[in-house]
């Protein structure tokens, strides 16, 4: 029996002894007769416990080993976006009662989490103009992939058509999620999307991998023409301004929730947003919260439609998802609520304005051009005179974290993202730096 006195373990030696006595054993080892003796108590090649002040200092030192946006101007997007998060949101999210609760299986003891989830569903429906939503998925890409599976279930078909303007990252996740179910993925030309007749879904990203706005309504028509569902994966911030999936007759809408109040945090934890038409709810994956009444007629909220889920339906469940991302959902809820009607719109417009200012100015620089046509939101591709990695290294020297390297699609293509967090000063510095770097050869 090791006897470590640790802040996270209250029992003292004498208490442990007392408990063992009450249990009726002499030593701890008597409690684990089934563990093969020769395998017990292996040596762990791990350091000894570090007191909190040591850990705190060590972790701060490690954190400083990263180049941190905020200290550096940052124009990276491509799936994760920097937006201002109000102190109000942080205060709400740090409440221990939200942070340290479990999934609300006991509704009487979890009305806080449940009502938040109901607000989340509500506001995501309002923002996407879809009819119903679930309480969140792991992240955007997995939500998109689950939408593909859902479309296959709904149509009883096994082919998923993916527009060629969808990010490869998403296609990979869709493949991981579907490959062993015999589902085939077909990449279709965005300019002339020819869908196979047995397509379960047409999967669209909006804005697409180049940051450009897709014609969702047209894609819906294309899908519906062959009896497929239209699935759109959208940037939620863009909905503050652009036409919604709901208005475009999209059947299933997913999104990466991160831009709505979630720190970029090296890519996680995020939350997938998922909404669809009312008719399809019983094939929706994930947790769903519904309103009902208690024995005294009081309004309250519960997890509902649980028969879709793995803990009831097991191998026939709509998804294997169990622990989801409720806390990140809370961040998104607090964010949407705090930004509200005017704020969400304003963020979208600021992003649009600043990105366009940057794009127009960069396009004027010798050697730089904007190779992708079409309307864009807050991301756009710049063709650079020098390789992107090289350009970015030069930018970093000037205190700027540059854009995302899209060379795989466009030679020397850099996807730049500008949000409301980028000041004009930063944008002008970027422009000046690009001019300098571009001309350096």
């Amino acid at each position, binding site marked *: 029996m090791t006897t470590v006195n640790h802040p*996270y373990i209250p*029992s003292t030696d004498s208490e*442990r002894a007392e*408990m063992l006595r009450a*249990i009726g054993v002499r030593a701890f080892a008597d409690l684990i007769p089934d563990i093969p003796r020769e*395998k*017990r108590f292996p040596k*762990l090649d*791990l*350091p000894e416990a570090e007191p*909190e002040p040591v850990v*705190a200092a060590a972790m701060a030192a*490690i*954190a*400083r*080993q*990263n*180049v941190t946006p905020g*200290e550096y101007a940052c124009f*990276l997007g*491509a799936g994760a976006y920097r937006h201002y998060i109000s102190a109000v949101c942080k205060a709400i999210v740090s409440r*221990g*009662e939200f*942070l*340290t*609760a479990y999934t*609300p299986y*006991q509704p*009487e*003891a*979890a*009305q806080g989490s449940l009502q*938040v989830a*109901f*607000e989340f569903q509500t506001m995501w429906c309002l*923002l996407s103009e879809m009819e119903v939503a679930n309480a969140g998925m792991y*992240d955007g*890409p997995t939500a998109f992939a689950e939408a593909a599976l859902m479309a296959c279930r709904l149509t009883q078909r096994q082919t998923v058509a993916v527009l060629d303007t969808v990010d490869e990252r998403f296609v990979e996740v869709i493949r*991981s999620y579907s490959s062993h179910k015999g589902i085939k993925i077909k990449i279709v030309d965005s300019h002339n999307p020819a869908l196979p007749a047995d397509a379960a879904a047409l999967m669209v990203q909006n804005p697409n991998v180049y940051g450009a706005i897709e014609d969702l309504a047209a894609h819906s028509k294309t899908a519906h023409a062959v009896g497929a569902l239209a699935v759109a994966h959208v940037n939620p911030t863009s909905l503050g*301004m*652009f*036409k919604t999936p709901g208005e475009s007759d999209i059947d299933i809408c997913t999104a990466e929730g991160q831009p709505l109040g979630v720190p970029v945090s*090296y890519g*996680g934890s995020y939350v997938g947003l998922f909404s669809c038409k009312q008719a399809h709810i019983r094939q929706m994956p994930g947790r769903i919260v519904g309103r009902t009444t*208690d*024995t005294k007629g*009081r309004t309250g909220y519960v997890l509902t439609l649980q028969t879709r889920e*793995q803990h009831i339906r*097991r191998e026939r469940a709509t998804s294997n998802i169990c*622990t989801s991302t*409720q*806390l990140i959902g809370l961040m998104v809820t607090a964010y949407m*609520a705090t930004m*509200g*009607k005017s704020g969400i719109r304003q963020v979208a*417009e600021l992003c649009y304005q*600043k990105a366009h*200012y940057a794009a127009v100015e960069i396009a004027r620089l010798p050697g730089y051009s904007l190779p992708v046509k079409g*309307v864009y939101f807050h991301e756009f591709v710049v063709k650079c005179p020098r390789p992107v990695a090289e350009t970015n290294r030069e930018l970093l020297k000037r205190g700027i974290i540059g854009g995302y390297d899209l060379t795989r699609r466009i030679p020397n293509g850099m996807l730049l993202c500008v949000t409301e967090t980028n*000041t004009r000063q930063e944008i002008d510095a970027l422009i000046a730096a690009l001019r300098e770097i571009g001309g350096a050869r």
Partner: protein
Amino acid sequence: MTAQTTIAGALDRRLLMDRSVPGRVALTLPASDVPLQAAPSADLLRKGLDLPEISQLDMVRYFTNLSQLNFSIDTNFYPLGSCTMKYNPKINDEVASLPGFRDIHPNQPDEQVQGALRVMFELQHALGEITGLPGVSLAPLAGAQGEYAGLLIARAYHESRGDSARTVAIIPDSAHGTNPASAAMAGLEVVTVPSNAQGGVDVDALRKLADNRTAVFMLTLPSTLGLFEMNILEITKIIHDAGGLVYADGANLNALLGIVKIGELGFDICHSNLHKTFSTPHGGGGPGAGPVMVAARLAEFLPEPVVVREPAAAKSSLSATSHHGDAEPVEAHHGAKPYAFAYRLSRPPKSTGKISGFHGSFSILVRAYTYIRSMGRDGLRSAAENAIINANYIQAGLKDKYALAVDRYCMHETVLSAKRQHARGAAALDVAKRLLDYGIHAPTMYFPMIVEQALMVEPTESESKETLDNFIQVMRQIDDEIDRDPALLHDAPHDLPVSRMDEATAARKPYLRWQKSG
């Protein structure tokens, strides 16, 4: 009760949209600082936008009041079996919110995020060390996704050997629902193996099922009955002899830390729920993280990314021997000179690919890493030992009143059966709901499904003896109440924001979002 109430003195449960007043704002933003740009054509734009308009105070008050309607670890004992509701250290949250972790972008090149990659690399090492399965990917976003990733690896392994007829997953009847669900997603046929009378796997039945169609056998260890499989070495051998792989559902890893390494028992693959064993906050249902660990020969199939270290910088792993100063290994990243960097994201040669958007649940990974450093090797073992002692102490204190699913020493949790109580008129549900009146969260109910009137109690190591004693006393008192005043149980909970909910109507007539009507 200090909450916001209505004029009738009831809780004010209005939703944000019902509180919305046109023109109110909770936040304002600066005007644009760039010259006005051409707007997109109107037909590309959305029409209306209905979202709440609330003042900042009302926003704070709304959410603060809501939070108080929750039970949580920070406020209540929460002996929810299978969930490991242990203390979530505050320092972990503080660390995760350091700008150097919180504000780094997933698309930054490796050389800019050496600190983050180091955390991931060392966490991989620690998890490999704890489980005895050295191949680690941190990509899976929760336990269920870890399972799925593990099953994809199993499939890829068999396929890489041309052994593609292996499409069966054998799963015990006591398994968690995610196991069969994940297997189905991986395109495997689920075959159930029954439990024996001692709560273990029926070895004979397993022997019959294991054959050349067996892709994988999934076993939860300790089992969902809170028991350590008594024939574990025999079982892993049976599966291996049949050419299958053995998967450990590591949701209950808290019982094994420093007690036994899963890999040394013959398991090939396992996942671990960092949000359980490694104390990251459950957040009301996630986010979690479910890293997958595999034996060395399977490492080439791991989902991407995996963090590797350049041999050049062979120092700073989180290990007993080579743990060095935290500010050391990476050169400063200022100015013009190229970085000396040691860690990078990589894709294993036969990787099953990408299963999530970026590099895993990073904010959770940071917390788990911080926890492991805080506990150290002895602390981890102590956690497991105390978790086991606490569960057995509760079991010993209740077994005369509540039947045990299996009368053996348990591991980190004990599965009680309220069948005697049920016979006297109170179901497991009633006992569970009555506990809420005493400020104690209900145990997991009716799981595992093979136990009648199951109440699964997992105290964890972070609860004090007084808390356990109080729980035992309350459970015994509730048992008394059945005969004294059964309404105390049937109508429970009495003093919470709501009493029992009409779940049937909720499912029959789904009301899933605010509607203008109210």
